[in-house]
């Protein structure tokens, strides 16, 4: 815990202390400001935020890459993209990051794939955190039969072989449109993520419920709904933020895995996972089909993980750092 006291001391120093010859000026700072101040000092977290900003920019500008290169993401260019033997050509002035096995532009496809990864990763994590928080708070606060039911439901979800069930769902509903498969992928990922989330929140609520301020609120005549919304929920904000930010990289990997197996986001919409899946037959001669989506995927998940760790340290300086980096 020594780092905390150091940090506190530093914060005090930064507040200026009493200026010479004048009374001490105390400036109040909100928890958010304090957290932001701590976050800014975490170089790795700030750097990963920068990397993520670049990836977002890369994704947002996808149509622009397509227009500049003159290569729409689903158009094939057999003449320029493939050599006379039908093998994809590597990075060149025409195809900056090479062409794939059908002569499509890897750069443009990677940019559209980034859109899928980010949208699915963030939406699925948000959905899972909303449902997980709701279930966790209800289960932990209300207790009784509802708690038994919800807790067992969460246990059961965790016991399901998620990859198999996801595949089963995807085959059962034989989705063929890109939009529907996107929604389906998000729902599947959220379904398999909310339980772990809810379990942690439930534990948290169980301990919050015993705290004096909840007892005080109750003795003042506050209703259960009010206690849940006004006393319990605000105390979960830090935990929920951290868990959600760490759920994003997991969701991105989940989507990539499903798409790699051909049961995630449907073709022709490119996703990093499906790019890796489609290219896996020609890696031997075309390393860029492995390197481009692979590196982008790794960079994105790594940055989100570092960002999540940074947010955790910033919001909860007393928290257990032994498990993290540092």
């Amino acid at each position, binding site marked *: 815990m020594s780092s905390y006291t150091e940090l506190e001391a530093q914060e005090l120093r930064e507040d200026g202390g009493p200026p010479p010859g004048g009374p001490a000026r105390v400036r109040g700072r909100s928890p958010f400001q304090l957290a932001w101040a701590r976050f800014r000092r975490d170089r790795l977290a700030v750097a990963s935020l920068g990397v993520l900003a670049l990836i977002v920019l890369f994704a947002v500008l996808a149509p622009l890459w397509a227009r500049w290169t003159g290569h729409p993401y689903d158009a094939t260019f057999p003449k320029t993209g493939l050599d006379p033997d039908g093998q994809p050509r590597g990075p060149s002035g025409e195809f900056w990051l090479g062409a794939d096995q059908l002569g499509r532009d890897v750069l443009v496809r990677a940019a559209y794939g980034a859109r899928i990864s980010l949208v699915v990763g963030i939406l699925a994590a948000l959905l899972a955190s909303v449902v997980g928080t709701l279930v966790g708070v209800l289960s932990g606060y209300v207790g009784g039969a509802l708690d038994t039911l919800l807790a*067992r439901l969460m246990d*059961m979800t965790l*016991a*399901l*072989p*998620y*990859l*198999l*069930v996801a*595949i*089963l*769902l995807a*085959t*059962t*509903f*034989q989705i063929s449109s890109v939009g529907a498969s996107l929604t389906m992928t998000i729902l599947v990922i959220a379904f398999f993520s909310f339980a772990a989330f809810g379990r942690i929140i439930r534990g948290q609520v169980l301990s919050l419920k015993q705290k004096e301020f909840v007892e005080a609120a109750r003795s003042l005549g506050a209703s259960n709904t009010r206690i849940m919304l006004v006393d319990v929920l605000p105390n979960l904000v830090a935990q929920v933020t951290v868990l959600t930010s760490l759920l994003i*990289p997991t969701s991105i*990997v989940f989507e*990539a*895995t499903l798409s*790699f*197996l*051909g*049961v995630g986001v449907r073709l022709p919409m490119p996703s990093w*996972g499906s790019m*890796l899946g489609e290219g*896996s037959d020609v*890696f*031997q001669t075309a*390393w860029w089909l*492995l390197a481009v989506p*692979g590196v982008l*995927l*790794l960079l994105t*998940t*790594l940055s989100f*993980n*570092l960002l999540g760790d940074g947010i955790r340290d910033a919001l909860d300086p007393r928290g*257990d750092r*032994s*498990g993290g*980096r*540092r």
Partner: protein
Amino acid sequence: MTRFVIRRLLYAVVVLWLVSTLVFVFLHISPVPVERVIGGPRATTDTLEQIRRNLGLDEPVLVQYWEFLKRLLRGDLGASYINGTPVATLIADRLPTTVWLVVGAGILWFVGGVVTGVLSATRARSVADRAATVFVLIGLSTPPFVMALVLLYLFATRLGEAGFRFFEAGPPLQEHFLQRMILPWIALAFLMIAAYTRLTRGAMLDVLGEDYVRTARAKGLSRRRVVYRHGLRAALTPVVTQFGIDLGALIGSTIVTEKVFGLQGVGQLVYQSIALGDTPVIIGVTLVVTLFVIVANLLVDVGYSFLDPRVRLS
């Protein structure tokens, strides 16, 4: 104790029943007509009707559900739509490969994770600890299938061209067993080694901060003895618990590794069945794998209640 085990067993049965019901429902709301899959695109209406009758699909849904449950109780998982082979036979043929894959990877990740975690905790803030932390971050951020593809590319393709035989593809499993399995083991274990390093390091640091550890040191015991006798033993309890759960769950996640390395395990069976629309096989594998997960969880729960009496009370 007995009551606890009985309660957990009952719970396991309920979970299995729910999963099989869920699977049955999926099958019935699927918009893909089963008879089309079997009969092929050129089958006549009569043939399609005949297939439906043979499969009992013309019966009311509840009757079908009852038959489905009765078959399951007898351990009958049905037969493949494509070639009529019993699903149980198909799974039994493929299961050894998957089990070998999971067991080998499990040993690798448990030993790797615990050793790295302990070293990193006992030398906190050293260069080795920092290196381990970087490894953990990269390991936790690398999707397993990307790891598998990278290993395949580097060791099988590039070094294979240079004349090193790190990887042999294709059945049977007994031939060149190590060359066939070592890359898949590493690919499957990589992320888990990272996760277990983090878990062990955290648990070790927690335990080493306990009062009884200080007491043991104050008594004059050597640091080595305290770390390994008092510390490691207590720190391993949560790690072992997690290991049981993960090992069971991993059986269902080998699909990707098997596909990349061309191993003919249960995962490949499912993957191939998806392309063919062979629903009974998909259902069968899902149920068998769920059974594995449940049994693993059950063993962990019961084993844990032996170790820690507090669990039995909850």
